[in-house]
């Protein structure tokens, strides 16, 4: 049995799926990179005992506003982490990038206004070089979340001394 949280396991699985999907389902690669980021954030929230309050905020939203606003709650939370560790917006900017692109790829939000073709065709034009830029964004998010967790753990230790 693994010690990894369910969120960390899912984040890693999504990241792996993203890499596999790059070739045949490139729009799903974009979506999975975002959902990997989302679950890395959930895993961080679990480790710092903030997951329940985060989920309460999302569950208290009205039915009609759930999809957009649930992501707004997460976005605000990621912004808070960025403030806390003074990440100079590296965390939130990369998270926002993946979120915005996933909305385009998954929900086709304004896609006719944004793209010349379907998301599958558009992201299908990505070479390894372009996908590397996308996966680098996820890597930066992971690094910043690890930094935030280290900061939380060291402040917890200093309080218990």
């Amino acid at each position: 049995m693994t010690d990894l949280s369910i969120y960390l396991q899912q984040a890693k699985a999504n990241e792996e799926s993203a890499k596999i999907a790059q070739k045949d389902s490139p729009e799903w690669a974009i979506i999975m990179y975002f959902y990997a980021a989302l679950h890395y954030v959930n895993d961080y929230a679990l480790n710092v005992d903030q997951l329940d309050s985060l989920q309460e905020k999302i569950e208290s939203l009205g039915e009609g506003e759930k999809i957009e606003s649930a992501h707004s709650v997460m976005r605000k939370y990621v912004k808070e982490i960025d403030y806390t560790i003074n990440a100079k917006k590296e965390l939130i900017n990369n998270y926002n990038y993946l979120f915005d692109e996933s909305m385009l790829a998954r929900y086709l939000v304004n896609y006719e206004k944004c793209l010349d073709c379907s998301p599958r065709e558009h992201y299908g034009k990505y070479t390894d070089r372009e996908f590397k830029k996308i996966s680098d964004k996820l890597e930066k998010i992971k690094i910043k979340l690890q930094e935030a967790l280290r900061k939380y753990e060291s402040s917890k230790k200093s309080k218990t001394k």
Partner: protein
Amino acid sequence: MFPLHLEKFNSNNHFNVFNMLRKLFGFIDKLRPEFIAIKRLVAELETLPKVQTVRAIRNRKGNSRKVVFEILANVNPSERIDLLTNAIDLSSETEWKLDVLTRSRDWEFQIKIVKNFSGDKKSQVVILSNDRPKYLSPAS
């Protein structure tokens, strides 16, 4: 506070006063730091490579601090990644400045790279565009 006594005006005058106040608030809105910051951001975004023009949009209802910046640009998929990355970096600088200015963390800026400005929804209002200047509503 000076009472306006709008009820004493007849209906035509009422509309004149209403229009006058609306114009006045529109002018005041242009001087608000939030508007100036958004205007400056639009100008900065327009300096990015391949960008033709930029406009700022928000929903008529709901969070008035959620602003979408539509960037009109003709870019290939690879260029689009770099443009979106740079535009998000610039927009978050302004978003955070406004958070500090308004002592909140409620500002939410979103970037969209678009091929055209068509398909505007009735629920949205263009708050700034070099083609069609409009003002933030007093309620924002």
